[in-house]
């Protein structure tokens, strides 16, 4: 076995002594180093390779551990959050508003606020440029209420005149004549998903824009009797002056199953995208609808104390008698973490955030601040997807490498040790496998075999395809090394001792060539990650909703996305690029460390 001796105190005396004594061990002063230790020693000194190790380890650890802190629901989609740019400005209330707020409203990815003088402020990420064209105060007069929707804003002035800006398609700009001229006392306005709603003091409701999703129909006797309304993207419900909850639809759904016992007794009403909640006059909250995001799980200890309630996309916020706020429901962005120690005058909730104006006039905000890396076209948080995508890409790469390395070692080991016919047969097999055109074959296999199986099985299939097609390189390398090693004395010794062939190959020869295998496996890992990404990128690898760095880039193939939504391709591409470069640097460093000759290069 090749055991190199390294002298720690390389003095001339020791050198002379060594010359005399030849290769005999020099007790104490001689430190015996295995080839592996030597390699590690040389490797640590390689700056580029160590940078690669640090970078890769960092990304690896992030991808493994951060998903526990940033959990992700792979099936979650929300069009209202589509293509939001990176940044955390969504809750940054302008300082002029801080102590002077009249009304605040949460929009999809932006917010709008009104100060006591009727000036409008907007902040956050704007879905379109038209939102920034706020009508001048000379045109609007003194505004008293605002409401932000998906991509438009509705506002009303003290004369009851309604204004709108932002998206003007789908009939959003055609405000009903009665409301345009003013003269009505507007009680409530609402900007929603491509629709605007307004309610007068007389209990008349108006809606304009597209009611395709909501299909509003007014049951008899409701118009003129409306006290308050609540809306989500699925339904509009009203609270009549008699304290009854009436859905403005003629379809039955989970929303329309209103508990009978509360009718006539309701004081406030709120909706999320999956359920509804009503507050009765005795301060209790009743909820109905679906409970996927835990919107029905009202905290028990607030029952009997609630005075009003507001709803976001998947959460509720309730104001209690003593002015404190409580939230429940979906808490992915902290929107249900209502501040404990404030006494509020009014609360506005929408989408994933809440604003509260406290009794002393200051503004408190909680919920979605923004996205570190923006969102994709389905409104999914890119940062979270990059984390789980990285985990997926690395897992697929690692398992594929393990499969191919094991096959390579077994085939190469047996082939090299046995020689003769076995060697010939195995090498022909290796040649056949390596003649198979890699990428086309992967595409075909995954598209044919991957058709009728589940997503998890599909991922396993991809790992196996990659592993089963990429072993010839390692097999050849192992065969070559085994050929060189099998003539060494220690093999003869092992044979003489009666060690079985299998034992000789895998227990005696293998440890001597393990460094070569490690280097090759490292470089193979980068190749497998690349192949997996390429496959997923063209849609034949891991498919949605599972994320990998490759399929995150699939949607970014057209010029429009590349130009306007840069965050959708820059971040996954950066991650993948850094990882593969790091791994290749590590592989190169390892190769140099193993092969002393290559240092001269």
């Amino acid at each position, binding site marked *: 076995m090749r055991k190199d001796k390294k002298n720690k105190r390389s003095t001339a005396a020791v050198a002379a002594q060594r010359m005399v004594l030849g290769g005999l061990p020099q007790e104490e002063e001689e430190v015996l180093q295995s080839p592996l230790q030597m390699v590690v020693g040389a490797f640590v000194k390689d700056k580029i390779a160590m940078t690669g190790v640090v970078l890769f380890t960092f990304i690896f650890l992030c991808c493994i551990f951060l998903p526990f802190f940033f959990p992700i629901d792979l099936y979650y989609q929300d069009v209202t959050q589509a293509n939001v740019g990176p940044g955390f400005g969504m809750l940054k209330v302008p300082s002029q508003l801080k102590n002077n707020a009249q009304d605040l409203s949460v929009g999809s990815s932006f917010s709008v606020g009104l100060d006591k003088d009727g000036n409008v402020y907007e902040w956050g990420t704007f879905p379109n440029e038209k939102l920034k064209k706020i009508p001048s105060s000379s045109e609007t007069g003194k505004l008293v209420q605002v409401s932000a929707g998906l991509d438009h804003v509705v506002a009303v002035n003290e004369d009851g005149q309604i204004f709108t800006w932002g998206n003007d398609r789908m009939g959003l700009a055609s405000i009903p004549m009665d409301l345009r001229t003013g003269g009505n006392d507007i009680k409530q306005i609402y900007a929603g998903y491509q629709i605007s709603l307004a309610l007068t003091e007389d209990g008349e409701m108006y809606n304009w824009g597209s009611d395709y999703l909501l299909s509003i129909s007014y049951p008899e006797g409701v118009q003129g009797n409306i006290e308050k309304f609540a809306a989500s993207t699925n339904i509009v419900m009203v609270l009549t002056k008699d304290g009854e909850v009436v859905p403005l639809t003629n379809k039955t759904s989970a929303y329309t199953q209103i508990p009978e016992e509360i009718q006539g007794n309701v004081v406030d009403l709120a909706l999320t995208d999956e359920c509804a909640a009503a507050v009765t006059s005795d301060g209790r909250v009743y909820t109905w609808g679906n409970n996927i995001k835990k919107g029905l799980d009202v905290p028990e200890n607030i029952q009997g104390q609630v005075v009003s309630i507001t709803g976001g996309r998947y959460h509720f916020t309730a104001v209690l008698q003593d002015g404190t706020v409580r939230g429940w429901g979906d808490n992915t962005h902290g929107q249900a973490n209502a501040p404990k120690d404030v006494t509020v005058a009014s609360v506005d909730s929408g989408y994933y955030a809440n604003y509260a104006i406290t009794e002393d006039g200051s503004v408190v905000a909680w919920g979605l601040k923004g996205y570190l890396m923006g969102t994709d076209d389905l409104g999914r948080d890119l940062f979270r997807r990059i984390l789980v995508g990285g985990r997926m890409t690395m897992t697929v790469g690692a398992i594929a490498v393990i499969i191919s390395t094991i096959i390579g070692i077994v085939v190469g080991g047996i082939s090299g040790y046995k020689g003769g016919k076995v060697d010939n047969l195995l090498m022909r097999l290796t040649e056949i496998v390596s003649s198979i055109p890699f990428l086309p074959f992967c595409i075909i296999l995954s598209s044919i075999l991957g058709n009728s199986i589940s997503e998890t099985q599909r991922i396993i299939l991809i790992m196996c395809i990659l592993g089963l097609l990429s072993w010839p390189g390692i097999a050849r390398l192992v065969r070559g090394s085994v050929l060189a090693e099998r003539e060494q004395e220690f093999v003869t010794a092992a044979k003489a001792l009666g060690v079985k062939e299998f034992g000789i190959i895998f227990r005696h020869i293998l440890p001597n060539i393990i460094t070569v295998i490690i280097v090759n496996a490292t470089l193979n890992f980068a190749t497998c990650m690349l192949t997996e990404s390429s496959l997923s990128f063209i849609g034949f690898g891991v498919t949605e909703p599972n994320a990998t760095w490759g399929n995150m880039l699939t949607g970014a193939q057209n*010029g429009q996305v590349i130009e306007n939504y840069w965050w959708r391709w820059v971040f996954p591409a950066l991650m993948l690029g850094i990882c593969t470069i790091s791994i290749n640097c590590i592989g190169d460093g390892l190769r140099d460390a193993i092969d002393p000759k290559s240092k001269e290069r």
Partner: protein
Amino acid sequence: MGKGRYLLKRLIYIVFVFFIISILMFWIYKSMPGDPVDIMLGSSKTTMKPDAYQALYEKTKASLGLDQPLPIQYFAWMGNMLTGHFGYSTQYKQEVINVIGAPMFNTVLLNLLTMVVVFVISIPLGIATAVRKNGAFDKSVQVLTIVGYSIPTFIIALLSIFLLAVKFPIFPISGVRSAGSTATGLAAVGDMLWHMALPVLVMSVSGIGGITRYVRAAMIDVLRMDYIKTARAKGLREKTVIYIHAFRNALIPVVTVTTWWVVGLFGGSIVIESVFLWPGLGKMLIDGLLQRDFAVVLTMQMFYVVLSLAGNVIMDVAYTMVDPRVRLDG
């Protein structure tokens, strides 16, 4: 053993490999879900009477030869393949041979141009870095090449689209020729080259990265040899030493790598073709898979297999050409 006999032996062996892979592929395609006859007949199923449809179904099945046992189907198909009858494309409603001409031309053109670009850049670059090893120039090229071959081609594609087609609209984003272009002759060639610029650039980057490194490593090994010292001692000009004495010997390892790279290049162009909507074989393969067009997919796959095996043969021949010492008796 002479060169001729060796090459003959290799050829026979490669034909053997070809048949094994073709059987493997045939088995895979046959186990595919989905009925090609149904797909070919399309909407007739809903518009025709059941018994009339059944008759048409059997007729079509027989005309496609799908009623025969599998081995017979395989041999019939192989016989057809070898005589250029690649089968009937259920997607194009035409013989496959009639539809693969243009895509094959496009793909081969794209890859050939890439090869030219890569060799023209990487070989001189590899030699130059080897001669000036460990200098500032060498170090910076080393870093660039490792970045070049590490980054996946589709990321380079996105980057280059962003820079050269969107931010600075110099080149078109996709396609083969300008929409509605009626240019002929030289102008048409120019238009096509202009459309090829981005795909060729993208495909070249990783090739340049990899091959430059190989050329450099091989050259460094060769430049340490005694015969190089001899050549220099004889008083030969440095250019002669490097380009004639050293480079020819350095070519041996480079040939191996290059062959594998070329085979991989054709496979990798599937991704590039799908990004740049380049109507080549890769795009045809993907379309064929999505449309369950067995004949097209099989033909494409065969093309890649033949290409890969031809790569092996070319590698063998190239060895004998670059290095007369290579004894081909393995």
